[in-house]
């Protein structure tokens, strides 16, 4: 195909979008609706996945020590915990470190009056991580049992998200699976929707195709402008979708910043725009091209 012919196909494809007016608007709209739902689910799945990953890596046992525990005893307990086979690491967090961490996550204005040396109400603590997240309960019990070994009862409290961790695992897994099924189903549905819309477009132009064949156009010559038209409709539809999704998610993200727990758990737009935008645009164009190729096939037989 010569370059001039290629330009002609591009021109014809673009022209026919305008020529078909409302039909093109309908096609673009159906792409936008399907891809938008798809995009919302993708965002949901991505965020839930990120949350689940965070929860996975966050499973740690906070062991708070009683105030009467001196350095020697502290070291003894540290080595006791460290030698447990299920434990992967242990980190000592002094009361001063604990205060710093709290300041970082809450902001210092919340903690005014507590941060001075003798005002710090926090106990010294160990952060214990386990190799297998599902063993947290078992390890926590083992650590609590250390109180029976030492007369001083050095452990004040052992804390891990009892129950909540386990249920979170279960919920995230379910949401992830259902999300994937939904995304696959919706993708298929939008494909059929679009191929139908383009089929109607082509039906309206049966006459034109018939005349082209009559005067000796090759099949590929006939197919190209429709191919371009489908791709352009897909491109326009997916760009509109991506814009809507980004603006919407941006708003949601901004609104979430006022809430402390939400702010930390949402993925910032900057981390996912390329991925999400890329997938939706590629999918939109592919759906448009696929729809137009499928629909024109049967008109080229004669």
């Amino acid at each position, binding site marked *: 195909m010569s370059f001039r012919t290629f330009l002609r196909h591009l021109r014809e494809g673009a022209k026919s979008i305008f020529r078909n007016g409302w039909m093109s608007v309908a096609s673009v709209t159906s792409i936008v609706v399907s891809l938008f739902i798809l995009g919302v689910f993708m965002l949901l799945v991505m965020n839930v996945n990120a949350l689940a990953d965070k929860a996975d890596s966050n499973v740690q046992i906070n062991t708070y020590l009683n105030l009467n525990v001196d350095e020697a005893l502290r070291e003894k307990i540290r080595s006791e915990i460290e030698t447990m086979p299920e434990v992967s690491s242990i980190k000592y967090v002094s009361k001063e470190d604990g205060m710093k961490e709290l300041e970082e996550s809450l902001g210092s204005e919340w903690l005014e009056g507590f941060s001075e040396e003798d005002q710090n109400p926090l106990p010294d603590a160990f952060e214990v991580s386990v190799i297998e997240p599902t063993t947290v309960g078992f390890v926590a019990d083992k650590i609590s049992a250390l109180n029976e070994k030492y007369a001083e009862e050095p452990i004040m409290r052992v804390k891990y998200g009892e129950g909540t961790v386990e249920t979170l695992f279960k919920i995230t897994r379910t949401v992830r699976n259902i999300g994937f099924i939904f995304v696959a189903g919706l993708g298929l549905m939008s494909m059929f929707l679009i191929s139908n819309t383009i089929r109607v477009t082509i039906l309206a132009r049966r006459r034109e195709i018939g005349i082209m*064949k*009559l*005067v*000796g*156009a090759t*099949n590929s*010559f006939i197919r190209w402008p429709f191919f371009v038209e489908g791709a352009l409709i897909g491109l326009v539809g997916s760009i509109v979708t991506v814009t809507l999704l980004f603006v919407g998610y941006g708003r949601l993200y901004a609104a979430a910043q006022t809430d402390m727990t939400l702010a930390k758990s949402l993925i910032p737009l900057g981390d996912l725009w390329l991925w999400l935008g890329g997938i939706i645009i590629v999918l939109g164009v592919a759906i448009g091209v696929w729809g137009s190729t499928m629909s024109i096939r049967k008109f080229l037989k004669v």
Partner: protein
Amino acid sequence: MIEMQDVWKTYPNGAHALQGVSVKINRNEFVYVVGPSGAGKSTFMKLIYREEVPTKGQISVNGFNIGKLKQRKIPYVRRNIGVVFQDYRLLPKLTAYENVAFAMEVIEAPQRIIKKRVMEVLELVGLKAKANREPSQLSGGEQQRIAIARAIVNNPSVIIADEPTGNLDPETSWEIMQLLDEINFRGTTIVMATHNKEIVNTMRKRVLAIERGQIVRDQLRGEYGYEF
């Protein structure tokens, strides 16, 4: 040029449109195809430009075996056959010029040549002045001239015209016939199906009469021969 040997065409619904037709049409001939409605005239025409394939028998057009033609070769055979219909079949949203140029764009002719040739052909059919009008702004006769211009623009060796005057008044019909006669005079074979008794009897050419799927009469300088 066009040769049929014992051609049969049976449609999927069981109708025998053609039953053992054998005929030879030479280069530069002008042939009327006459006969009652449903006798098989249209099928006869469609077989020539490969809209239909024969159930049995052989058809050759310009040396191509039409029945055995590979799908991807059909466009190239069609470029050598111009087709004109009763209902013109112009694209409504294109101008007269664009409708004719369309046939050349499709075969990927250079723009420069398209411009020159389309104007030439529009002049031949007498519509150069109305090149920028859309079909809806033209009369029936003018639309048919545009359709004829489109059919001849790629210099085909044969024109297939299926009742080209069927929708036109007698005076306009004559103008169209003079145009076709002129094109034939310039060296293009013309095969024309018609119900127009007056035209056939006045402008004497070869006549093929088809009845019940068979050629019942083949006369040089023949007559229409039916009373309707």
